[in-house]
């Protein structure tokens, strides 16, 4: 007789919403696979609401701009304006060691190449260099330059599963491909866009962010000095590198920002479902769902015509004006959206409903980057201060949203609207950053006195008003097209 196949084991009944308490009892019965249980619990709102400051990693002598966990999650790597790369045991809040990166300007990104025993670190900085740090067992570190952009390099993207291949995006608009096996750097193409109605004129898009879709590692997305997030197919880029052509397979932009001259993208993130998260300066954060049926355009001249106009999910409440802020997902299945803010807070929203679930005081003024632990609900953030902050679910009875959350968001909204007519360029941003550093001396510890938040907001507002004056003068100093980059 033929085989009679049995059904495998026990499938989870997934109809009821997760409930932490009953889930614990389901786990002990075997009704819930332990790993699924851990993921569901890690994604629970109760846990996210209990995130609080676990510790500060002090040691850098400048603003910290880059943080990353290694693949097992026990080591954190940071990069700073002091041009040092530091390794931390974040759990015991201790520094393991540090090495000079060799960069001549502020470090913006550190990446640990996977499957290398955490021995190869690639870094990028304001000097445009991409450098490799090779860690030897005896503690020595060799650093070499792998390639260079004309302008800052804020982001690198490592090809998923590869120990050798990564990509860089620069303010010069170029995407470069790196292979550590051959120490080769290849310019794939320069990102450009048409201006106005004259489709014959191309202008470079200075790039701030690059991310690879882990669901489909051939696709990467970039964002920069215009309003479009562009998705490219790596396979086509490599074929076309000789012709240096720019052919995105998809572009994303909220409907109301199309044609805006005063917004740019500061951060991008792909979710495990292939959704793209886009953060704009002095605008909001938008989530675009993957469009399975988008066709690639035959030429860049018509790429704008094929752009997808989606009703994107919107995340608001924060302020993103003064720095190239990252944006990220959080949770084992990317259940949350995470951003820093100029007001110094860290915002966490639920991805599906865009509801704000947690607001934490991160830095004095600006929180720039945040990185989630690969396995457990732990968060590392950095910003205008000289330390890295570690956030963990703690059992402290704190309200997830401070009492003045509405005032904070209203202040951010007003600042955003007041800024909407002001043009920001990377030079203006760097000017602001330099101003910020002088203000650091006036830093007031607010961790232990929540009542100070209101007065701090007043200080921040006063400072912002001062900035408005400064911007007027900067316009006089830099006449001409605001989108031109002086570098080239």
């Amino acid at each position: 007789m033929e085989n009679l196949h049995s059904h495998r084991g026990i499938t989870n009944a997934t109809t009821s919403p997760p409930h932490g308490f009953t889930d614990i009892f389901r786990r002990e019965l075997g009704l819930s696979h332990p790993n699924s249980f851990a993921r569901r619990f890690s994604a629970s709102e109760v846990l996210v609401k209990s995130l609080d400051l676990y510790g500060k990693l002090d040691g850098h002598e400048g603003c910290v701009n880059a943080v990353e966990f290694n693949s097992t999650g026990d080591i954190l790597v940071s990069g700073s304006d002091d041009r040092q790369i530091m390794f931390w045991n974040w759990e015991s809040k201790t520094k393991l060691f540090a090495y000079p990166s060799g960069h001549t300007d502020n470090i913006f990104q550190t990446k640990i190449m996977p499957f290398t025993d955490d021995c190869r670190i690639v870094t990028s900085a304001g000097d445009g260099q991409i450098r490799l740090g090779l860690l030897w067992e005896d503690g020595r570190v060799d650093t070499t330059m792998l390639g260079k952009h004309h302008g800052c390099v804020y982001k690198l993207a490592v090809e998923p599963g590869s120990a050798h291949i990564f990509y860089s995006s620069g303010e010069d608009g170029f995407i470069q491909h790196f292979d550590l096996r051959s120490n080769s750097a290849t310019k794939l193409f320069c990102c450009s866009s048409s201006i106005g109605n004259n489709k014959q004129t191309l202008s470079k898009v200075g790039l701030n962010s690059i991310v690879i879709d882990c669901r489909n590692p051939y696709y990467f997305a970039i964002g920069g000095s215009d309003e479009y997030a562009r998705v490219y197919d790596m396979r086509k880029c490599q074929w076309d590198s000789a012709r240096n052509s720019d052919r995105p397979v998809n572009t994303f932009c909220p409907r109301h920002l199309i044609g805006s001259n005063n917004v740019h993208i500061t951060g991008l993130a792909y979710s495990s479902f292939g959704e793209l998260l886009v953060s704009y300066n002095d605008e909001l954060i938008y989530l675009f769902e993957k469009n399975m049926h988008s066709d690639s355009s035959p030429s860049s001249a018509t790429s704008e015509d094929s752009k997808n106009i989606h009703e994107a999910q919107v995340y608001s409440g924060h302020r993103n004006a003064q720095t190239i802020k990252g944006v990220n997902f959080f949770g084992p299945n990317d259940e949350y959206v995470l951003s820093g803010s100029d007001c110094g807070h860290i915002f966490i929203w639920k991805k599906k409903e865009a509801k704000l679930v947690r607001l934490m005081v991160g830095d004095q003024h600006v929180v720039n980057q945040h990185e989630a632990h690969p396995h457990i609900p732990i968060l590392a953030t950095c910003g205008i201060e000289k330390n890295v902050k570690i956030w963990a679910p703690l059992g402290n009875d704190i309200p997830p949203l401070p009492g003045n959350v509405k005032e904070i968001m209203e202040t951010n909204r007003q600042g955003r609207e007041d800024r909407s007519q002001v043009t920001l360029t990377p030079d203006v941003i760097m000017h602001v950053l330099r101003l910020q550093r002088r203000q650091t001396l006036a830093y007031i510890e607010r961790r232990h006195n929540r009542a100070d938040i209101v007065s701090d907001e007043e200080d921040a507002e006063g400072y912002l008003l001062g900035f408005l004056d400064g911007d007027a003068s900067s316009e006089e100093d830099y006449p001409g097209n605001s989108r031109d980059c002086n570098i080239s």
Partner: protein
Amino acid sequence: MTIWNYVVTAHKPTNVTHSCVGNFTSPQDLNLIIAKCTRIEIHLLSPQGLQPMLDVPIYGRIATLELFRPHGEAQDYLFIATERYKFCVLQWDSETGELVTRAMGDVSDRIGRPTDNGQIGIIDPDCRLIGLHLYDGLFKVIPFDNKGQLKEAFNIRLEELQVLDIKFLYGCSKPTIVVLYQDNKDARHVKTYEVALKDKDFVEGPWSQNNLDNGADLLIPVPPPLCGVLIIGEETIVYCSANAFKAIPIRPSITKAYGRVDPDGSRYLLGDHTGLVSLLVIIHEKEKVTGLKIEPLGETSIASTISYLDNAFVYVGSSYGDSQLIKLNLQPDAKGSYVEVLERYVNLGPIVDFCVVDLERQGQGQVVTCSGAYKDGSLRVVRNGIGINEQASVELQGIKGMWSLRSSTDDPFDTFLVVSFISETRILAMNLEDELEETEIEGFCSQVQTLFCHDAVHNQLVQVTSSSVRLVSSTTRDLRNEWHAPSGYSVNVATANATQTISVRIFSLPGSESHHKGTIRNNRREIILSSCAFEGISYLLCALGDGHLLNFMLNTSTGELTDRKKVSLGTQPITLRTFSSKNTTHVFAASDRPTVIYSSNKKLLYSNVNLKEVSHMCPFNSAAFPDSLAIAKEGELTIGTIDDIQKLHIRSIPLGEHARRICHQEQSRTFAICSLKYNPASGEDSEMHFVRLLDDQTFEFISTYSLDTYEYGCFIISCSFSDDNNVYYCVGTAYVLPEEMEPTKGRILVFAVEDGKLQLIAEKETKGAVYCLNAFNGKLLAAVGQKIQLYKWVLRDDGTHELQSECGHHGHILALYVQTRGDFIVVGDLMKSISLLIYKHEEGAIEERARDYNANWMSAVEIVDDDIYLGAENSFNLFTVRKNSEGATDEERGRLEVVGEYHLGEFVNRFRHGSLVMRLPDSDVGQIPTVIFGTINGVIGVIASLPHEQYVFLEKLQSNLRKVIKGVGGLSHEQWRSFNNEKKTVEARNFLDGDLIESFLDLNRSKMDEISKALDVSVEELCKRVEELTRLH
């Protein structure tokens, strides 16, 4: 302090996770193959029922078990995939009766998210490929070539991320899968894909169907001629194919298991989460499906797997109750059920809690478990060794021997019990009132000690004394004939069967030698029992005067003795006696440690009897006491029946509800449990939660306290408080409201047992679920949500007591497990591993002293000794941490150092200190402290703390055993035992696998010699050392 641990299984997993039916052991054999997570059992279906053929461990947790038949083969092959991404293909070798590995491999990927909803492994019905869904978004294909060999695997990207089930469809020219998935908006759909082997990609399949039942969870592919697929939801069952779509509503239920009845795929058995089995019929006319029909058949255990065998026989495998062999009758019984339960197979899983008690006050622990779930919940009393159920006893001193005799050759029952003393023989018999009374057999010589008695043919009896052999009529009881020993000689040892008597005279002359290869030393007071056959294999058992037993394999045609083994059964001389129980041969070894010797899976096993100092024993199958034994111990003769012969004896106490927590109170001779009862009669599933008091001998409910609506019982302990002589049960509860993610309220209830009733003495409300309670320094320590809270028992002005909060410690994610020792508190956190707290009396404060910085998701914790703490975590690993009080820095002293790591492969729910065996003061292992654990799969295991020298020795033995014993399917023991979670995989350290070590005793002699040579230790010494370890459990 010892960091070296020995982990051994006392009771194997009993939770049935997979089963399948096919022709595995031969083209004509119908086999049922069962997986119990880490073990597989192969059974043969015969007219007598299920015949066990093989029971082997697998070095992995089985995720997939499938039989398939490659092209051109007459027998099925078995495909097994494990949760850690190993796979193998097994074939049965009919000549050797062994499993052969046809293929093996590793299908893990460096990147990718392990799938949330469980791994899927499926085989194309035409055996073109194997499909695996192990990571989100990836479908792995292992193609077959034309000869049935496996080729290199590759991945295909799967767009659907939340996959619920995947199956291969029948009757497709290209391999085609159907995928049941959930989209981002939580709607469920199915779609089909063809696997294009050449392109290594999917092609859109023949059909799809959107917006199914929101509870759709299971796909059943339908074979030709109908083809298509059945989609089982909670309220709907759908048949779907390219040509037809049929749906019927069903009573709301969660279907967990199915089995196909007919080769043409027209009928299926479905089992749901309440244990109801239904017959689903696809109504068709000439290969065209016209409808569906479902008909309830009756109740079984809650099925995790259903295998239709043959002729209406069905195997129901269960995870929440005992598995069953059932027969489907054509006519319903009085209750309207078509289901007849023919056989039950014990399942202890899931063990969610247990306690260790000495119910019979013999100095040996018994484990009482909360087992099962839903309606199949039960308590199980697990005891090492075989119990005697006493029926009658009489005081008699100085018994030297006992034999049972029948009153005629054809009488099926024994009538006489001959009891021998130093200088006389007495005869007991059952009278007409079924009482044991003294009687006479005139032909017997009653003034001397009897050496041997036996029934003989032609209604005769034989009595052997030191001076004569007497033949007596069993009907008239008169002497028929007598043989006298020659002058100057005496008979020392005798045995007989029905037709002849054999005497063995020991010569002390020099030069006397054995006729056969086996060597016997220390031959004083030998007792030889020959031609003892177990499971068709003949053994020679030799009992020695020093308490050792030798056994040899006996070749009955040549008389050759091989495979000599030596076992210690005590320190006193042994007498051996065969008896029959359940139509199986057993040997009773009477000594200071009475033991039953029997065979299972062609292996001799030894199980101790729960009696001390049994000097003699004989079977006594009387009409009044069928299948009984007569047992002589100091000053007493007892007649009783014997429990089922197995190493661990399990008594089942069905509850009809689900016991979650249990505690024993010696003072009141009671157990108390937290339980819940499911009430499916009302519209939706509703639960009632209770605290119940049970008699500790009969397990009857003697008192019940009903908890509030939404109130769950979470924990229960028996304790007393400072300045109060009473003993109380304390219960921790939680109010589980539907709108709350985590309970914000609970209670601590304090009960006294008065006049056999639970009396509520005090209650204390808490701001969270009370996950754990401990008696601590005369006070009560509670784990309440994120906090540890200490309560004292305070006398109020009106003379009553109340719990009053003294101090606490917060900062945990969820404090789920708490153990205490002196002033130290060990906390197992849901997510943050183990922390060590200390209670400061003077300050009335609890502070953290140290913690483990690894983020382990805990499932159980225990304190091994003052400095070593044991944990079990979410990825089925065990680990130990050590307090570092002498560390040089605060950071070092504040860190619990991980000193042991081990992959158990089982989810541990509870550790308890205790032992399943009597602790004998003269034994080396008697001093070793042990912890017992219970798991979801029904495993009861023991962890023993070893001295370092013993650990080092056994580690070498384990290392050599790995070379000699190969895992089934080529799986590696070293990889299997490596500590593994999503963050890391590291080699096991400071833990030994007792199951592997004790398998040394099962090796044949040549393999034993091989290991003996490698270790430079004699086989006898090795056997002795390993055999002692088996007495740990």
